[in-house]
């Protein structure tokens, strides 16, 4: 089908291109992870294995920290589950867009469903022509996957010789900020973001990011409430105001 493949390729490359700036935050994080995993006593294969098979940055850091403390494997696996619970919300948010895709597509998209892939592709799914949104998602997800694997490997091989005074760790929240801006399209989105940030700050002492999940769920509830207040149901017979 030569008429369809250019669209697919364009979506795929568009997703990859829009992900490149996000890699500014991902790559230093991967470098630090690779170096830290060796410091804790993991072999290079185990360190890379965490990135290859778990593929979840913050959970990998928590896992390595717990391995250092000598926690039981079952405890570490349960903790990884809790740290990654927010992905259930991403999965639910993405589900309506992918329900008609074959299972093999959904299996691949689930594998690549990180914070970054979700955040970069969400505005694309909200635009009008989303026929090939999954190709865009694939471009985003594979760019992130490749960046994460290579930066982990570089951290394993070269260690972290980045001077601390460069503050490269700050690139990660900046990439999240850059992903947040296109998602702030209306008042409910603003409310959800402000509530999410404030609640997560208030609940930061709750261990293993569980406070984060609670903060996101409450913030979404606040956003939905703002939506109900700002767009009340119109009475029958009342004409709609022009806007």
């Amino acid at each position, binding site marked *: 089908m030569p008429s369809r493949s250019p669209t697919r390729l364009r979506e795929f490359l568009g997703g990859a291109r829009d992900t490149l*700036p*996000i890699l500014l935050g991902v790559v230093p994080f991967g470098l630090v992870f690779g170096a830290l995993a060796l410091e804790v006593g993991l072999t290079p294969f*185990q360190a890379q294995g965490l990135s290859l*098979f*778990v593929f*979840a940055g913050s*959970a990998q850091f928590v896992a390595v920290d717990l*391995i250092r403390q000598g926690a039981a*494997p*079952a405890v*570490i*696996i*349960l903790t*990884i*589950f809790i740290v990654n*619970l927010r*992905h*259930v919300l*991403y*999965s*639910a*948010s*993405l*589900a*309506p867009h992918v329900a008609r895709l074959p299972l093999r597509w*959904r*299996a691949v998209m*689930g*594998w690549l*469903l990180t*914070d970054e892939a979700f955040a970069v592709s*969400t505005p694309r799914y909200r635009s009008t022509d989303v026929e090939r949104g999954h190709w865009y998602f694939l471009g985003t997800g594979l760019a992130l996957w490749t960046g994460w694997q290579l930066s982990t490997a570089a951290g394993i091989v070269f260690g972290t010789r980045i001077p601390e*005074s*460069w503050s490269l760790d*700050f*690139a990660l929240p*900046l*990439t*999240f*900020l*850059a*992903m*947040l*801006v*296109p998602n*702030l399209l209306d008042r*409910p*989105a603003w409310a*959800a*973001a402000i509530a*999410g*940030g404030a609640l*997560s700050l208030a609940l*930061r002492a709750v261990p293993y990011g569980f406070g*984060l999940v609670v*903060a*996101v769920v409450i913030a*979404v*509830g606040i956003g*939905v409430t703002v939506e109900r207040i700002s767009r009340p149901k119109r009475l029958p017979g009342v004409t709609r105001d022009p806007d």
Partner: protein
Amino acid sequence: MTPTEVWAVILGGMVVTYTTRLSFLLLSHPERLPNFFGRGLRLVAPAALAAILVPQVVVLETGQAEFFGPRPLAAVIAALIGWRTRNAWLAIGAGMIALWVLQTLFPA
């Protein structure tokens, strides 16, 4: 930790992570979910992104929150530039440069 235990963590971590990500993608009729659920889903991205980034910007290594320091100020500058230009490269670059300048002007 023995090598077997480490690999148990890696494979167990893989299973639980993939479970969370795949969960709702397996539904063939997500539109049958309750209505309030559907309305909230588009707000997951802004809520989660802000919830992840705000503590990273505001919380110091001591665990205290600092709202008027180099990091929060640099984040505000990055947000304004991202808002005006809609360009992620410029937003992230401006945020890093702002942080370096502020850290030089106001050393801790």
